């Protein structure tokens, strides 16, 4: 089995900046070196994900999960170490990142699909499936700002899953939406997993993770503290209730 994602000794730190004007930048140039202004988000993280594997990223808030997803999607680059991926990626780092509140749902579907790398013709083919999955047939010509937050994320999720990526990155997006839609998402994710899609998911609902993932990486303050089977990871994090 070959790898879909390989992360090797990746580190990422953020510089906290307070200077957004030229004057501040000149005044602060000495403070740059001040270590209290540097946050180490990830430190020496290494793991790999096989093709078709489901991996849960676990850890408390601020442990570096989202930063790690951003490195994998290519939005950010590591300070040191390397990240390699195989195939296409759809990052659902935030549902509806590409959705524009002023555009109609129809316009948003085409725009967001294009942002995720689809051509107009591919989107046209998938259009009906996207709409019916999101359950937004009645709102096609409504501006997205009139949708409820649940509908908004349904639209975002529906577009993303229909791009049929090789690697799907999901960051706590299933926290929104009602129970029925969550089940629908779960089924769609499982269906894509069966087809061989690699999944990396950040979620706190252990029940959901159990159905989608066999393995887990647990982060704590930017370091990998556990990697292995999901069942063992639950013992490490103590999240063996239903996560809520």
């Amino acid at each position, binding site marked *: 089995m*070959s*790898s879909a994602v*390989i992360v*090797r000794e990746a580190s990422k730190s*953020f510089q906290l*900046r307070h200077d*957004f*004007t*030229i004057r501040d*930048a000149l005044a602060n140039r000495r403070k740059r070196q001040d270590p209290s202004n540097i946050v180490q988000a990830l430190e020496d993280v*290494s*793991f*790999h994900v096989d093709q078709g594997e489901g991996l849960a990223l676990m850890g408390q808030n601020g442990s570096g999960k989202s930063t790690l997803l*951003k*490195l*994998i*999607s*290519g*939005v*950010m*680059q590591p300070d040191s170490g*390397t*990240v*390699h*991926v*195989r*195939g*296409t*990626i759809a*990052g659902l*780092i*935030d549902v509806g*990142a*590409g959705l*524009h509140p*002023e*555009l109609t749902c129809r*316009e948003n579907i*085409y*725009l967001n699909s*294009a*942002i*995720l*790398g*689809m*051509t*107009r013709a591919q989107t046209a083919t998938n259009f009906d499936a996207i709409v019916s999955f999101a359950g937004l047939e009645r709102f096609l010509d409504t501006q997205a700002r009139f949708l409820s937050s649940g509908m908004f994320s349904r639209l975002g999720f529906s577009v993303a899953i229909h791009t049929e990526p090789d690697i799907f990155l999901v960051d706590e997006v299933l926290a929104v939406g009602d129970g029925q839609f969550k089940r629908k998402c779960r089924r769609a994710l499982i269906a894509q997993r069966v087809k061989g899609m690699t999944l990396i998911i950040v979620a706190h609902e252990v029940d959901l993770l159990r159905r989608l993932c066999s*393995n887990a990486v647990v982060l704590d303050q930017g370091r990998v503290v556990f*990697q*292995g*089977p999901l069942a063992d990871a639950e013992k490490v994090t103590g999240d063996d209730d239903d996560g809520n």
Partner: protein
Amino acid sequence: MTTLDTRTEIESDDLATGGKHRLHEPGGRGGLIEVVRHRTVLSMLARRDVRMRYRYSSLGFAWAYVKPTIQFLVYYFIIGVVLGLERRVENFAVYVFSGLCLLFFFNETIGNATRSIVKNRAIVKKIWLPRQVFPIAGVIVAASRFVPQFLILMIGATATGWYFTWTGLAAAVAGVGVVVVWGLALGLLLSAVNVYLREVQNFLELTGFLTHWLTPMIKPWTLVASRLVPDLGLAGVMLLTAYLWNPLTTAVELFHLAFWSPTVDYYFELSPYLWTRAYVFFGLGVVVLAGSQWLFKRLQVRFAEEL
């Protein structure tokens, strides 16, 4: 999840497979070629921005004409009629408007491009795209506003005796070429710098004003020369040289050559060495564009964390 020597796998994978299913670094290298590959999203973003701009105006797309029309009327009446420049420059209306619509295109390009990355931060932070699509979409939006103004220029010029010449066509193409190359070069650079220093966009308010007065858009270069050189001597010659040898003066004069000079009997107001400057500033623009793309590529690495 076995531990493995990833270095070995990456290296053996490079030899074993090719194409789409090869291991690669996520995101891109930041080159302009990736923009061509993402042309679907480029055209969708441009279309979105055009649509958004006029969605809440009852005048719709006609709103695009209001600003240049008012500017044109003010310049024509105040400078042309009240201050009397109309008597010195034949067909003054076409003289002003040919420069005005080209500079409007330039300023729109710079303005749209500079704000583009910050404006699209929701996407830039969350989804990887070649980041140049945002400023380039801004250039396309500017072009969409330039085209109708250009048609008005054609109507005005034709009504006052304009006729087709190959030289005129070449000058028009060269004028637009210089503006696009420099607009894109500066727009790319400023869009990236604006992520780090937001006050860059404050300077945009000045560019319209400066470009109108520091080029021969309103007054011919002969008028400037007749004041600068006798009054200031050598310093005047240097100022005049700077006034003539810059990309925007060149572009404006190329448009004068293309659309104004066929409509008048005397066009000695056109500045000398125009074609030489056209070649120089187009060539130099391409070099500056390459340089600003190089800088953009380096600055964009930290876009997601700075926004």
